[in-house]
């Protein structure tokens, strides 16, 4: 198991957003996390990615306990998240959005641009090549030098996905990547996600509301309701599960929750 979450709990004042949720994610899988609005899915992501600290419970990623680590450290260990509403750097160009995310740029140390200009610019050239490849992959090459603020919502999500990949993650967390994305871009995005697993071996944990889509791409589905995991299994078993149907699928009658 690449990720093991055991009994995590998080309360905001009186609201228990996550209460004792446990789940695992297998290396190389695409796992979906579903559940009605307010079920605690985004909060679970915040806990797993180190952006919030659980009140209780443990998280293990790639053999390392991470529940007390900060977000940037978790990202460095290879677990990178993409936000529910895209957070691109709007004043930077599309290319710069990717360059900033690269690892091992010695020029990020203060003074390095003076002290080791050679190493900095050599690495910069490598990073740039890598960024151009990623842009081609998400078909944003024509926007390379455009300001990211000028992109549509869907394009921003693609850009954020490409940016997360620049960090060279072992696993990515995608929070509703399809929401607000035009259908054509959405299909593209799904293709990319499948490719990531196939070609780069990246493990994917994805929150998504479109049940048909979830069932078609994921190897495994985890269902949350009111802060707990209420079901966990292969897609067809989940679709047949009584508790899931009453808690989620039935209540929202097939439509997006």
């Amino acid at each position, binding site marked *: 198991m690449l990720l093991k979450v055991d009994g995590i709990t998080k309360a905001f004042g009186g609201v228990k957003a996550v209460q004792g949720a446990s789940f695992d994610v297998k290396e190389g899988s695409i796992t979906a996390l579903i559940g009605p609005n307010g079920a605690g899915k985004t909060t679970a992501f915040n806990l797993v*990615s180190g*952006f919030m600290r659980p009140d209780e419970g443990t998280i293990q990623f790639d053999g390392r306990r991470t529940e007390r680590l*900060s*977000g*940037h*450290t978790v*990202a*460095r260990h290879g677990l*990178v*998240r993409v*936000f529910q509403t895209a*957070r*691109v*750097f*709007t*004043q*930077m160009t599309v290319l*710069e959005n990717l*360059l*900033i*995310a690269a*690892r091992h*740029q010695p*020029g*990020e*140390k*203060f*003074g*390095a*641009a*003076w002290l080791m200009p050679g190493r*900095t610019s050599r690495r*910069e050239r490598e990073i740039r090549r890598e960024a151009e490849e990623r842009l081609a992959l998400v078909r944003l090459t024509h926007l390379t030098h455009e300001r990211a*603020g000028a992109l549509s919502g869907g394009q921003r999500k693609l850009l954020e996905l490409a*940016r*997360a990949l*620049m*960090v060279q993650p072992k696993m990515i967390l995608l929070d509703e990547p399809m929401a607000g994305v035009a259908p054509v871009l959405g299909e593209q995005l799904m293709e990319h996600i499948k490719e990531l697993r196939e070609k780069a071996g990246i493990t994917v944990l994805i929150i998504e509301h479109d049940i048909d889509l979830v069932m078609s791409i994921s190897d495994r589905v985890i269902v949350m309701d009111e802060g707990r995991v209420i079901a966990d299994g292969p897609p067809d078993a989940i679709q047949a599960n009584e508790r899931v149907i009453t808690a989620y699928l039935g209540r929202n009658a097939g439509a997006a929750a």
Partner: protein
Amino acid sequence: MDIFNPVFWIFVATTGGIYTIMALGLYVQFSLAGLPNFGHVAFMAVAAYAMAILVARYGLPLPVGILGGLVAAVILAILVGVPALRLRADYLAIATVAGGEIVRYLAMNLQGLTGGPIGSIGLLGPGKIATFNGSWQVFMGDIAFYLKPIFGKYGRPDTAMAIVVWVFAFAAILVLWRMERSPWGRVMQGIREDDTAVAAIGKNVVGFKMQALIIGALLGAVSGMLLALQIGVFSPDDYQPTITFYAYLIIILGGMNRIWSVPVGAILFTLLYTGTRFLNVYPLTLFDSGERAYLRLFLVGLLLVLFLAFRPQGIFGDRRQILEK
């Protein structure tokens, strides 16, 4: 002094240079890293006091005093930054205001250490006159000796001071200008826009913010010590909270986010500020000089408001950048 006297212009140049260095510190913190520091003057004051105390009281050489001033400013930056930088930006704003006020009250009230309200002259206690800038004046005199052939009768210590100040200011601008365009500057720009997103791509945001805070504190310290060396005798009144406000004005006047506009903003501000001193023409002469001093502050404020109303992006700024998000 009158407006046609070169000595006045040397004074304006020196002051403008010191303000440039001060505002560069704030530029690194606020314009580059997005850190709202509302107690910048505290870094200046702490450094000036540390330097003066080490030299006047402990008889240490001036370079040691200057080093002590830099160290003191870094310690203050760490004391303010460690608790506040992990929190949202508004907490840093509050912490820096508090830090600034604490420094000022300590300077005022720790009479035994700082000379209290009388200032640096009282560093050795009552009845004794303390000085700390003797070797600086000797140094400026030495430089002036070499300036004589070029500047004639204006090859004076104050000309030397203006040159030293501007050499440092330009060196600092050059270093920062290069850094801003390096990968380091790119991370800073990211932090200014959205520090959560920067953390999400694996960068140590708190570490980068601490670097910006310390670099800004060091520049503040240099400007604070230069100010002390220029005026020779200083007191807590020379490090009023309004000076932090001047640093913001300079950045805004020049146009945020553009490093070369910092010296222009600083010179413009210095001209505005010292220039209004010459408003001794009718009908302003109807006011007595005490009243004119307030009138002057009022006019500076009015000019700035008008400036911002007509050119909110500053002299060099890009209007689009402040209007859209």
